[in-house]
């Protein structure tokens, strides 16, 4: 089990508009995070961006959401993209770690129940310099999801990679 070991982790959160990414070197060292909108040929474009990120940040572990977990529902396209990324990563002999949304909630909120907004607010409080400005307003029923939420999904995955310090 990895406990506070310095490992460079690249978390990718593939979503409907593109992907969110986060790079961390330890539980409290966020190197980079952001989102990339891909408008056409989404799966091909997203995989190309993943390859670019891997080349630039040289991570040791690739963290992805577990799209096949019972608590997760994803579109067929995103499941295909996920499969493509995992296959490519295994070909490149990368370590791939799949983390479910429940694991993220348990680690960050201490509870299986919780909203994406609560997770995002927890992360913004944890990394105020990097994330506070990027925290989107609370989503109302008539609003679409803010594109910036991709960043928080990716940072949540990267943060959950390390077990909590007790």
């Amino acid at each position, binding site marked *: 089990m990895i406990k506070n070991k*310095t490992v460079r982790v690249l978390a990718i959160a593939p979503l409907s508009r593109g992907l969110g990414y986060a790079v961390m070197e330890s539980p409290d060292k966020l*190197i980079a995070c952001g989102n990339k909108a891909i408008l056409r040929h989404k799966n091909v474009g997203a995989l190309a961006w993943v390859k670019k990120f891997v080349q630039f940040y*040289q991570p*040791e572990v690739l963290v992805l959401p577990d799209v096949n977990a019972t608590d997760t529902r994803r579109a067929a396209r995103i499941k295909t993209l996920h499969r493509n990324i995992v296959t490519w990563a295994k070909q490149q002999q990368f370590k791939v770690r799949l983390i479910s949304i429940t694991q993220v909630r348990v680690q960050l909120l201490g509870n299986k129940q919780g909203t994406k907004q609560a997770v995002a607010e927890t992360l913004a409080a944890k990394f105020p310099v990097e994330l506070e400005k990027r925290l989107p307003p609370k989503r109302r029923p008539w609003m679409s999801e803010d594109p910036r939420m991709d960043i928080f999904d990716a940072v949540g995955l990267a943060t959950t990679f390390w077990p909590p310090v007790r």
Partner: protein
Amino acid sequence: MKSLPNYLQTQRKRLSLSQEEVGFLLGLAGLNKGTKVCRDENYAREPSLQDALAYEVIYGRPVRELFAGRYQQAQQNVAARAKILNFRKVRKLDVRKQQVIIQLADQASINPSNQ
């Protein structure tokens, strides 16, 4: 863990500065001030000593932290050379010099990410 060649982009984003603003602070001339900063951040250009020190002033972090990968590489190279120097036979033994060389040679086994 092998460090990245530099952490300039991370530090710049921490301070919410644009590449052009950093270019101006570095004293780069011309319209493409931001391009040079971009090239530094993408490991496409090796900044001069003057620029590296200016980065230290701007970001408030030591050069060896900003250019962690380069520092790590330099440390390993020096340690490898110190090992060679350690085996060299000298007529007059200087204890202090010997200690320094042994210390430098030992740095190869130290993990620079802990610093």
